[in-house]
């Protein structure tokens, strides 16, 4: 399996896009991973599920605007260079 750096960038963009399109009410709420389940233990360490929810929510908040720009750039480049 020969990787290039370009395929790594592609993988990163695709994964970040996948995390960003998860809709909280429609999808995560249905499988019990909604907004209210994340905030839990303040004293002890939060569990794995709370950490994953935190991670998903922070990725969505932080990467929303940069993803728009990166996706537009990718679309333009792929249209031009195939």
């Amino acid at each position, binding site marked *: 399996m020969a990787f290039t750096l370009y395929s790594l960038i592609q993988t990163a963009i695709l994964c970040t896009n996948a995390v960003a399109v998860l809709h909280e009410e429609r999808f995560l709420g249905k499988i019990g991973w909604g907004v209210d389940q994340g905030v839990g233990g303040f004293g002890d360490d939060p569990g794995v599920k709370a*950490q994953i929810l935190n991670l998903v929510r922070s990725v969505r908040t932080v990467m929303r605007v940069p993803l728009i720009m990166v996706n537009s750039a990718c679309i333009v480049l792929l249209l031009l260079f195939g």
Partner: protein
Amino acid sequence: MNVTMDLPHHGYRATKQRARAAPPSADSVLFDDTSSAAPPPAMNSQGYYTPGYNMGALSNDMQGGAEVNNLFTDPMANAAMMYGSSLANQGKDMVNKEISRFMSVNKLKYFFAVDTRYVMKKLMILMFPYTHQDWEVRYHRDTPLTPRQDVNAPDLYIPTMAFITYILLAGMALGIQKRFSPEVLGLCASTALVWIIIEVLVMLLSLYLLTVHSDLSTFDLIAYSGYKYVGMIFTVLCGLLFGSDGYFVAFAWSSCALMFFIVRSLKMKILPSLSSDSMGMGSSAKPQLRLYITVATAIFQPIIIYWLTSHLVR
């Protein structure tokens, strides 16, 4: 007058000389620079200017000396050189400022403070870790000791050199089998680099998800995942010298040694932090999950070694 500076080779795999622009500003006792035995560069720049003014009239024996002196008696060239060096200094300061916004250069310097004795001992431990007794990383008033003073400290010199040597060795192995072309070298390098990045990201993600409060920084993880290249080089060499049987024997040996090394090293860093932050309610799932991380990292090493070397030794 000889104005060139010869840097002494040190280290096991000094494949390239590292030019040091200036000795590091001594911020702590731990980082004294023992590598450059030559006079500091300030004297060099003075050495450029004085022969021009004093010895221009003398008859010159050496050809090289004559050309250097003629160049620097010309005041225009002098002014141009001073302007150029000030411009270069400005550029260097700007680059340093930009880089230090992303990663602290001091932390990086810690990982390259090695010497020959450390490198030899570390390579011995990587290949034969079964007799090493004490795996604890020693501290000196809250800061971890440099690799020069503590054999258990991770460093980035060995992984970097091993990575470069592995790429060169892969090129040579492919050349022996007449499958070489320059693009293959770049492909091999980027594949290995991508696997390192993937492994470090997965480790960081799993350490974050399980809220393991260890002091493993990103550079530590890069160092620990770069140690497998030493095993890879040994495996490929044995495969080239002794054929397919030698390859499998060396592969088995280096995988066992590397798994042992990784488990013992990471156990010290990941597992003991359990006792400090659990308040008596330590769930039994936690130590198991941390053990799983350590064992999974160890199991991942032989898989990657096999994946990245089997196509070199047919």
